Each structure stands twice: as structure tokens, then as C-alpha cells.
């Protein structure tokens, strides 16, 4: 089975070589004479208003966490769909229950307004 993945290994090797080569060649051959003005943060011509590190709305995390949960749910679907012929009605109903549980979570999200951006 591992032999089937040999092209992936070759691909990994070649892409690593290309990536490293591009960065090193660019660093070696490109002109580089920085000064403090060139390295300073640039914000459309005027002085920067604030620091790069700033607090963001917690809503971004909420959306990301909810995405990960449903991402995991999709991951459970793949072996189920592949093995659907063998697992029969028991496996089919197991997935129905699983989805029903997550629909409860989805309703909780929706009704609480977690999907709204305001």
C-alpha cells in the first residue's frame, strides 16, 4: 500500500526543493539595501495609527470554532459514505442520530443569534 504513496513523497521532495531554492535564490541575487524608513510600517502615506497587535472581536473565534465542529462532522461522513453498503441500516441510522444531535446544536446556534453578524 505504501508504494502507492511514493509519488506523493516525490512530490513533497520536489516542492520542498523548489520552495527552498526560490527563497534562497531571491535572497542571494536580489538587491538588498534596507534603511529604517524602508523597514517602517507603511500605511497609505501617513504615520501608522496604531500597533499591529490589536484586539479583535471575539465573534471571529466563535465563527472559527463553529466551523471546526462542522468540519469534524464532515470528516465522520466520509468513511460512512464509503462503507455504506457494508454497514447496512444500523450504520445508516447511527449517522441519522449523529446528524440529529448536531442539528440540535445548529438550532441552538441559530436561535441564539450566533450566526448573525449584527
Amino acid at each position: 500500500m505504501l508504494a502507492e504513496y511514493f509519488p506523493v513523497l516525490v512530490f513533497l521532495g520536489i516542492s520542498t526543493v523548489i520552495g527552498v531554492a526560490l527563497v534562497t535564490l531571491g535572497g542571494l541575487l536580489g538587491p538588498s539595501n534596507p534603511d529604517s524608513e524602508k523597514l517602517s510600517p507603511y500605511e497609505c502615506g501617513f504615520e501608522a495609527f496604531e500597533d499591529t497587535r490589536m484586539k479583535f472581536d471575539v465573534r471571529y473565534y466563535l465563527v472559527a470554532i463553529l466551523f471546526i465542529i462542522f468540519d469534524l462532522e464532515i470528516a465522520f461522513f466520509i468513511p460512512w459514505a464509503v462503507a455504506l453498503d457494508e454497514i447496512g441500516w444500523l450504520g445508516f441510522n447511527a449517522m441519522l442520530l449523529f446528524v440529529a444531535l448536531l442539528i440540535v446544536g445548529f438550532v441552538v446556534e441559530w436561535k441564539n443569534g450566533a450566526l448573525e453578524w449584527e
Partner: protein
Amino acid sequence: MDIPIPQTVFYLFSFIMVAAAIMVITVRNPVYAALFLVLTFFSAAAIWLLLEAEFLAIVLVVVYVGAVMVLFLFVVMMLDINLAPLKEGFVSYLPVGIAVALLMAAEMLVVVWTRDRFGPEIYPVPAAAEAGTSNTAALGELLYTNFLLPFEIAGVILLVAIVSAVTLTLRKRSGVRSQSPSHQVRVKRDERVRLVDIASESPDGRSD
């Protein structure tokens, strides 16, 4: 003499994994630490692939590298991190940290050290799967029949995660002007327009 490719690949990726894991805890910049953690996960996925757990390897890349680490980077980049306050109190936290580390190491040793429960004699290397076997199908056949209860428990845990994430992070903001499409659609003509009878006027100002 020919070099055994799987062993070479294993040592290559495990070296990268251990090196990246050390970098995660030693590098100063939290963003770099998160990126090294991505590299660690990726090398672990490659090792799982060598163990012929192809589906789990791909899921590790998709879920951890693709989603969880992006969330980590979100958190790391969006919190306003000043490195100086992070370093203060290092010495005062040190005893607790060492105690926790020793406890974890002891727990791992309890599992791994005893020869009669763990080792190549107890778990011999299984025969390599022949070409064309679907690891995903084998996993599906077991997961949705023999391991049905753990699977449903996983669903309940995901539900708990949804509810707790919503409860912990959802804040209602007051004074937000937002559209309500359902309300807009259901609006009646009488709520928006008022017809008023006004007597018409002639050009010279006299009302008829």
C-alpha cells in the same frame, strides 16, 4: 546495498517532528511557535501514513493543520501580545510547571515502560496491506457497527462544544442598528404610507 525507503522516510519525518516540537516551546515569537506546531502536525500525519492509517493522516492535515491551527493563529495574532509581561513570573511558575511536567512524564512511563503491556512482543508489526485496500472503508465498517456507542458519544461531545462555545463567547451588543429582513418583508402598506386628503389650491392662492 539498498536503502529501505519506509525506514528512511520514518526517520526523516520523526526527526523533523521532534525538532519542530522543540522549536514550538523554545522559539520566542508565538506566531512562529504556532507555525512550527503546524509542521509538527504535518510530520505526524506523514508518520500515520507510514502506519497505513491513510484516512486518519488526511483528516489530521485537514482538521488540525487546516482548521485548528488557523484558529490558533487567529488567537495568537489577534490577542495583543506583549512579550515582556509573558516572561515575568517565569521563576514563580517554574515549580508548578516542573511538577506538572514530571507527573505527565511519569504517566507516560507507566504506560510505555512495562514490557508486558507495551512493546514489539505484545504488538507485533501487522502484515502490510496489499495494494488497493481501502483504509477508509475498513474504518467505516468498524466505526458505525462495532464502535457505535463511542461514535454517538462523539456526536454528543460535539453538541456540548457547540453549546458551550455559543454560551461562552456570544455577547449581545446594545445599540446596534441592523436590518431585519423578515420584518421588512412582512411590512404592511399602512405602516409605511399615509394618504392624506388635501384640498387643491388654485394658482392665485385661493382655496376652492
